[in-house]
């Protein structure tokens, strides 16, 4: 590349950089928003708050049996703290299961009719319904809901064994609170990966489509401008902005949550760049033809949405069926998130991330080349 071409590339990069940083929304959406999200999610999932669950108690007394002193009401008055609600008709009990290691669990048991209880279950405000049949307590809940199962286990243990479940002093429970095992340690690498994808896809695709629809693209190529310089300038600025955004997010997480990088820093930078290259390539590919931002919007969402959903940014993808996991693991966002995660929390180095590095770079190069082939400048 001669000096003239370098100067042209420099001017293109500079112009694109100015265009981005002069947009006030960039600061908020690119930098402040991810930090707020990490703060919100980090606090929500890291702090051991009391677990509160609503349980519906449907009494069957009014059906003629008139067993006022049933096993259920005995159990409730033995463990529960009775509050008479304002309406006065229905009793409310509060059962507390204190636990220092796991956090307290509080069950609020409310008497209501079967219909009310079902409505509550459908809406999610009730996660377990208790009734009584032949002196036995019956538990009604959705077997697919693990949270309801846990409520059932705790309550039935209490009622049947007459003792608190999950004893406070159990020496068999050893909570893990070391770095790398907390939710926030899982979340931050995911947020960094998502930031790379979102900024690159929207930034580059939108930038290109907007310039095409303004007819600026065709005006620019009606000069001796080198087309590759235009795209390289755009990608360079995007990678630079992503770097600033990611570093700020990391510094914030390091300061507030004491996040550490346990593995190789050069490997993190390598996977960061490979991720940027992959998404920049895809972004150029999907914005290679259209001049309509609405179509661009749809195209970007088609690419971004499945990965947001499946790639395990917020929660592990290992909860998805076994058969789809190999496919999820081949998605670019998964590769970036898993790569950064393995270096951050498992202490991985270049050797462990070499495959994603090669695959991500290849994705970028292939899509960039294909996009450039069909690119519509006019």
């Amino acid at each position, binding site marked *: 590349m001669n000096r003239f071409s370098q100067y042209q590339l420099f*001017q293109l990069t500079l112009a694109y950089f*100015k265009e981005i940083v002069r947009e006030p929304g960039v600061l908020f959406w690119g930098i402040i928003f991810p930090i707020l999200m990490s703060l919100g999610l980090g606090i929500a999932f890291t702090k051991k708050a009391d677990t509160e669950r609503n349980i519906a108690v449907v009494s069957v007394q009014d059906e003629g049996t008139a067993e006022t002193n049933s096993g259920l009401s005995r159990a409730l008055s033995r463990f529960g703290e009775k509050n008479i609600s304002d309406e006065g008709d229905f009793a409310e009990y509060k059962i507390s299961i204190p636990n220092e290691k796991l956090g307290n669990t509080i069950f609020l048991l409310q008497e209501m009719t079967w219909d009310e209880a079902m409505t509550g279950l459908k809406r999610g405000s009730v996660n377990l319904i208790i009734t009584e049949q032949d002196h036995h307590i019956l538990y009604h809940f959705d077997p697919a809901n693990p949270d309801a199962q846990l409520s059932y286990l705790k309550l039935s243990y209490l009622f049947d064994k007459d003792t608190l479940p999950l004893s406070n002093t159990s020496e068999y429970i050893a909570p893990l609170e070391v770095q790398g095992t907390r939710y926030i340690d899982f979340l931050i690498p995911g947020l960094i990966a998502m930031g790379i994808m979102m900024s690159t896809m929207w930034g580059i695709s939108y930038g290109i489509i907007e310039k095409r629809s303004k007819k600026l693209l065709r005006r620019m190529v009606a000069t001796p401008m080198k087309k590759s310089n235009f795209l390289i300038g755009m990608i360079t600025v995007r990678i630079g902005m992503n770097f600033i955004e990611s570093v700020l997010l990391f510094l914030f997480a390091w300061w507030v949550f004491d996040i550490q990088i346990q593995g190789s820093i050069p490997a993190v930078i390598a996977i960061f760049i490979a991720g940027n290259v992959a998404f920049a390539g895809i972004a150029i590919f999907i914005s290679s033809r259209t001049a309509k931002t609405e179509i661009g919007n749809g195209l970007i969402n088609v690419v971004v949405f499945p990965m947001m959903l499946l790639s395990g940014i917020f929660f592990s993808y290992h909860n998805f069926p076994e058969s789809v996991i190999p496919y999820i693991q081949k998605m670019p966002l998964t590769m970036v998130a898993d790569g950064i995660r393995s270096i951050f929390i498992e202490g991985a180095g270049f050797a462990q991330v070499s495959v994603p590095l090669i695959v991500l770079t290849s994705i970028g190069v292939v899509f960039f080349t294909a996009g450039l082939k069909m690119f519509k400048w006019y």
Partner: protein
Amino acid sequence: MIEHFNYSYAYYEYYYTNKYLGNGVSSQTLIRSFTMEQNPVVEVKNVHKSFKSVHAVKGVNLSILPGHFIALLGPNGAGKTTLVEMIEGIQKPDRGEILLLGKKWSGNEEEIHRNIGISLQETRFVDKLTVGETLKLFASFYRLNNSRVTEIIELIELEEKRKAYVQNLSGGQRQRLALGIALLNKPRILLLDEPTTGLDPNARREVWAILKKLKEESKTSMILTTHYMEEAEQLCDYIIIIDKGRIIREGTLDQLLNHEINHKTIEFTLETTTATAELFIPCNFEIKYDDLSGKGSAYINNMETELPELLSYFRKKDLTLKNLECRKNTLDDLFTSLTGRHLNE
């Protein structure tokens, strides 16, 4: 023939080199010695272009000599933009050939781009860049430095707006910026697609002033598309009238307006409401009369003899005049007489 071509090419090289050095004196003699044998800078030969359902350009031929300003005049949808975009290399003709500086687009893009300046019908530059930065960016594509940017800013009279964001410019200022960008590289061919459409009369005159100055000071050739006849009259030596993808008339303003036998128009409005178009058939010259509005036009050649003749005819038929106006024919009259429509329809 080949020798001839080389000669005129050499003249350009020399002329432009000198202009860059600011040494215009010695080149003047050379120009004079070669201007007798100029080759066209733009040649369009039997060019056709169709889109899905429209045959936009139907066999157009034209050629433009160095230093000439040409107008492509026609109503909206006449095919002007398609034609000019083919010359600009943005679209490819289905048939026919286009040569710029004697060369085809294919294989010579880089060289042609260096020598042309373009202003597209509607280009919106980056909102958040200033006038100065926008020009500097485009200057970098041509290897030009800041002093050329300053020259252009002076030429387009945007000195006060140098540091203003493009988004804060008025329509006229934006159009001047687009023109400035087109002129950055001192183009040998300037292609302007409707440079003043949508501008108010003042802003339009400011753009014209820049182009007139350019015509006086440089050897640039220009093709301009417009549907404003004043623009073509004010700026261009040669006017090509286009309608429905074909050239329907071309020539200098004089040639076009004196081409028709009747090149003056008398427009009148009658007080008398009973007059009909048939009433004017016996006259010696053509009269169009609309009995609904009471307005008529007489197409005459000699004002001194034919105007009194018309007035005496009115008197004879007992017609009372409300209003009468005599004027020279315009390009719009010519267009109307050829197509039955107006240019700005």
